[in-house]
């Protein structure tokens, strides 16, 4: 069970005009602009649910994920995940979550993938039994057996993403955060990743929260979507709320963005 209530997060961004003289001026006197990345965000997600978290670039998706996973501390608001506040009980909290950042790797670049997995086993204190069982299951579902002995730098993006997802599930997390998991993947890999997420949610009842710009991901995976723009929740509902009356979800979404000026 995840509840977020009235969470606010602001960033201080320094700004200056182009040109050398304004660069000099900025050296002496910095002007800051406050960016409200999150402006009173509230929602509830129950156990075993699969939720698509969408919005344009810079809307606050990543900030939300980072707060939920205990990386950032918000200025205001409360957040409870299975009874814990992520930024206060960080270590206890992160034991129960898995995080995949689509654009960043957690695998060691120069060593075989299996070595990275072994290190994770140690970091999360996974028992031999659980580790072997999960590794077997995951490599079967994601087709990893060929890849495990290859250094991460020699994998294709699709292969690497499958390994990334496996890496964040070795410790049986109750909640999985996926930040743009299908970005840059070819059709085959995309389908494989989607299939896997569906199965995971069905079989293990893992709560999945995913951010993406790919509406087909959302259509294939979730009923519920939360739409954020300029740091505010604009819609908490289903895909049909957006797509009804349009030829595709994409068009509906674009029209929605336009009508809200985001």
């Amino acid at each position, binding site marked *: 069970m995840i509840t977020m209530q009235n969470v606010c997060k602001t*960033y201080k961004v320094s700004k200056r005009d182009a040109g050398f003289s304004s660069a000099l001026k900025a050296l002496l006197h910095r002007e800051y602009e406050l960016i409200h990345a999150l402006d009173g965000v509230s929602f509830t997600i129950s156990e075993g649910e699969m939720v698509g978290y969408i919005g344009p670039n810079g809307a606050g998706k*990543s900030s939300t994920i*980072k707060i939920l*996973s*205990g*990386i*950032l*501390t918000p200025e205001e608001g409360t957040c409870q995940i299975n009874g814990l506040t992520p930024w206060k009980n*960080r*270590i*206890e909290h*992160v*034991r129960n*979550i898995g*995080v995949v*950042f689509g*654009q*960043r790797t*957690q695998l*060691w*670049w*120069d*060593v075989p993938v299996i*070595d*990275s997995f*072994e*290190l994770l086993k*140690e*970091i*999360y204190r996974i028992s031999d039994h659980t580790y072997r069982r999960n590794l077997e299951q995951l490599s079967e579902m994601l087709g990893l057996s060929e890849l495990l002995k290859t*250094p991460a730098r020699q994998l294709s993006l699709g292969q690497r993403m499958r390994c990334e997802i496996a890496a964040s599930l070795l410790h049986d997390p109750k909640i999985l955060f996926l*930040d*743009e998991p299908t970005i840059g993947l070819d059709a085959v890999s995309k389908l494989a990743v989607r299939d896997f997420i569906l199965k995971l949610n069905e079989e293990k009842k893992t709560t999945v929260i995913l951010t993406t710009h790919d509406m087909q991901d959302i259509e294939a995976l979730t009923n519920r979507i939360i739409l954020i723009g300029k740091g505010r929740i604009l819609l908490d509902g289903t895909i049909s709320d957006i797509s009804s009356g349009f030829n595709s979800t994409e068009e509906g979404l674009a029209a929605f963005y336009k009508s809200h000026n985001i």
Partner: protein
Amino acid sequence: MKLYGKYFMIHLKSIMEYKTSFLFSCMGQFLVSFNVFLGIYFMFRRFSHVEGFTYSEVLLCYGITLLEFSLAEAFARGFDTFSSIVSQGEFDRILVRPRNEIFQVLASRIELSRMGRMLQAVVLFVYGIRKSGIHWTYPKAAAVVLMLFGGAMVFSGFFVIYASICFFTIEGLEFMNIFTDGAREYGKYPVNIYGKRVLQLCTFVVPYALIQYYPLLYLLGRGKPYYALLPLAACLFLIPCLMLWKIGVRHYVSAGS
């Protein structure tokens, strides 16, 4: 500790992927420090004493300081290169792992190519010991171990300060090199040759003298016995460093997606 071993093995395996590069950087490290040794050598061809210290005593001093520094650099390298850890988003990853973040930063970078510098330090150290004519006893050997330990801690402390500042600003931290690389270079000579003011500063504010000058006097039989324990006092320096770090972590604002 077992986990640190695992990290160590991964670093070792990574390095083995690029054997030639590793060898060359070791050699580079060795030669850089060797240069400094030549500097000392030629200076002492002209002068036989510096503030009452002889050639071999200065070499011993430099060898110990260099060894302290390279120990800190090899094992606390994560803090030294912390700005890259932050800007590459690696620190986000560290925060979603159920382990202490200081431990993870330490383990995420183990710089084995610093072996070259360490080797140079060991050579100078052994040479200094042979020539200095110190009459070795167990307490004196223990004092050397304490110096190495305390010294590695003090230099690590500076790396931690350096890393903590990264939480507030990512750029323009070169001035911190005065305290790390600078101290290594000035550490060739016992701190007192720079004058009384510097010695006071290095005793009470930044504890360089506690890991170098005072215990060295003890080794050479010119200091009081308690001088040997001063490197332990120098470890207290880590407390304010770690406090600064804690404040920094609370200010952490990640690095985009």
